[in-house]
């Protein structure tokens, strides 16, 4: 089903589309460990790796081993990916902290499920804090992209590899079980479309012509460690300036703004349609990069709308970043479902109507 522009169009599950995208994006190594609802990623890769000779696909003995294999392979200059779901990602927190500190590029995929604990295997956005504030120790950030469609499960793989390599900081695709399991039409970019820039810092064997390369996160003198931290912070400031991505829908005339990411943003679209049918002018702001967060967009919108309603599949996590952006200038409301439950458009509509009906739109 190749199209004239060289892209394939297929009907695919999110997890499989992501795996195919990784192969086409020139991923050189994948390490993982099975966990629902993302096991199809490794299953697809083991099935299709032979079509891409030289690609390493290895089922590790654990997520802990897997993230450290990623560390090794990334440090050796390979384009590398790992995927898991919530509990498995928790096990990688030490590794992720190490990787940010050692400034290694890698793509980490979290297809979230309901928590905390073993929880459920149903879709959730309960790991926002973990992804965005840093679940591991120390001051670091991941670059976090939140897809909302199977097509974006493909596109963001390319994007995330580009970003992680440009900034030498791990990037995360934060999806959820529904996105991983659902099928949609996807256009697949051709193989070889994402060139890899040189990694002169990689440990590949020291030729006589250069000093040895060292990949480490140990800087035992605190003065030195602070320098590393300042480097990281400078990088994060650049990210915040240059790499924010955000989608706005029908915000032109909006009196109320929904704020939602990932799958939830699509449910919000439906709710927005319903609200507009009832004459309520609702717009939608969808943060695509959760870190760097589109604070400026939201701050700007605060000058226009009467109130914000944040919708998440959790107890209220991104809403803190929305509040920080709005900084008290407008009320920020929240509605969400937890533990694997998905909010319905009708529930969201009801929340919008309740907000609209508030006697005063002053901040409580």
């Amino acid at each position: 089903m190749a199209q004239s522009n060289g892209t394939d169009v297929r009907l695919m599950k999110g997890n499989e589309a992501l795996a195919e995208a990784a192969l086409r994006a020139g991923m050189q190594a994948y390490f993982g460990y099975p966990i629902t609802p993302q096991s199809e990623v490794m299953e697809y890769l083991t099935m299709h790796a032979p079509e891409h000779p030289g690609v390493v696909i290895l089922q590790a003995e654990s997520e802990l081993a897997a993230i450290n294999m990623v560390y090794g392979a990334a440090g050796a200059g390979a384009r590398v990916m790992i995927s898991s779901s919530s509990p498995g990602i928790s096990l990688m927190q030490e590794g992720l902290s190490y990787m940010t500190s050692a400034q290694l590029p890698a793509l980490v995929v979290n297809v979230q499920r309901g928590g905390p604990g073993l929880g459920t295997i149903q879709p959730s956005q309960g790991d926002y804090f973990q992804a965005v504030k840093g679940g591991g120790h120390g001051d670091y950030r991941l670059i976090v992209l939140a897809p909302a469609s199977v097509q974006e499960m493909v596109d963001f793989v390319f994007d995330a590899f580009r970003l992680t390599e440009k900034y030498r900081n791990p990037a995360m695709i934060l999806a959820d079980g529904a996105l991983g399991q659902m099928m949609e039409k996807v256009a697949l970019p051709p193989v070889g479309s994402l060139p890899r820039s040189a990694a002169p810092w990689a440990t590949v064997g020291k030729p006589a012509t250069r000093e040895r390369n060292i990949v480490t996160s140990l800087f035992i003198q605190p003065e030195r460690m602070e320098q590393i931290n300042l480097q990281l912070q400078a990088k994060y400031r650049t990210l915040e300036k240059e790499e924010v991505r955000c989608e706005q829908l029908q915000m032109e005339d909006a009196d109320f703004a929904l704020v939602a990411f990932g799958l939830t943003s699509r449910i919000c679209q439906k709710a927005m349609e319903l609200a507009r049918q009832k004459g309520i002018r609702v717009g939608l702001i969808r943060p695509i990069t959760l870190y760097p967060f589109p604070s400026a967009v939201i701050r700007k919108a605060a000058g226009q709308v009467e109130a914000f309603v944040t919708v998440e599949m959790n107890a209220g996590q991104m809403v803190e970043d929305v509040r920080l952006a709005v900084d008290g200038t407008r009320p920020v409301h929240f509605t969400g479902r937890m533990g694997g439950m998905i909010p319905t458009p009708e529930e969201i509509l009801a929340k919008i109507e309740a907000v609209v009906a508030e006697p005063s739109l002053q901040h409580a």
Partner: protein
Amino acid sequence: MKEPDVIEGMEVVYRKPQTLTATPMHYCPGCSHGVVHKILMEVVDEMGIQDKTVGVAPVGCSVFAYDYMNVDMQEAAHGRASAVATGIRRVLPDTYVFAYQGDGDLAAIGTGETVHTVNRGENILMVFINNGIYGMTGGQMAPTSLLGMKTSTSPYGREAAVNGYPLRITELLAQLPGAYYVTRQSVHTTAAVRKCKKAIEASFRYQTEKRGTCFIEVVANCPSGWKMTPNEANDWLEKNMFPYYPIGDIKAPKQ
């Protein structure tokens, strides 16, 4: 500070290999780590594979190994050196990869990675420095601490009923089909150092042949952790460690 090649008409017959950096090592006086670093780098030097070698340092006293070994290196999280080495070796299949780990690192927190790396028969060399103690963190009990051994977390001596028996992980690993060459060495005498170096040489050779994992345990001292002088420590090593951790090949390919 390189010494001259010739002195009073005599020629140099032994000097620090160029694969070791000029940085003085931070190890305590007499610590085995230094000896093992040296012979490892001598082999890299003599085999001329500096440009094809990538090492992995652990968390433990040898965490700074990359300050001394003049090869490309990665510093792994505590216990994960063999996983990191796996990652490197899988994407650089024609490189010589070694992981260097202490007993806390390899046989406590890293047990899972250790067993599975060897079970997969990763084509790497694993160097395992067994000094029966956590040197770096101040002398706590290791999985390999001997029964009765007093450490800062077994102040009344290690007891089997509470902490289990000292773990002979090398014997376990030798049974895995992925293990190609498994040996236990020491570096406390000249002869021992020479033998240990031979084991390292063989291991690097087997790596090119992609025969599976080579595993060298070095029964090592830790004068500071054991609270002894280096010479006392080496004596204690022979008298107490060797009976439980006997020196020699545990699994050797037929020549």
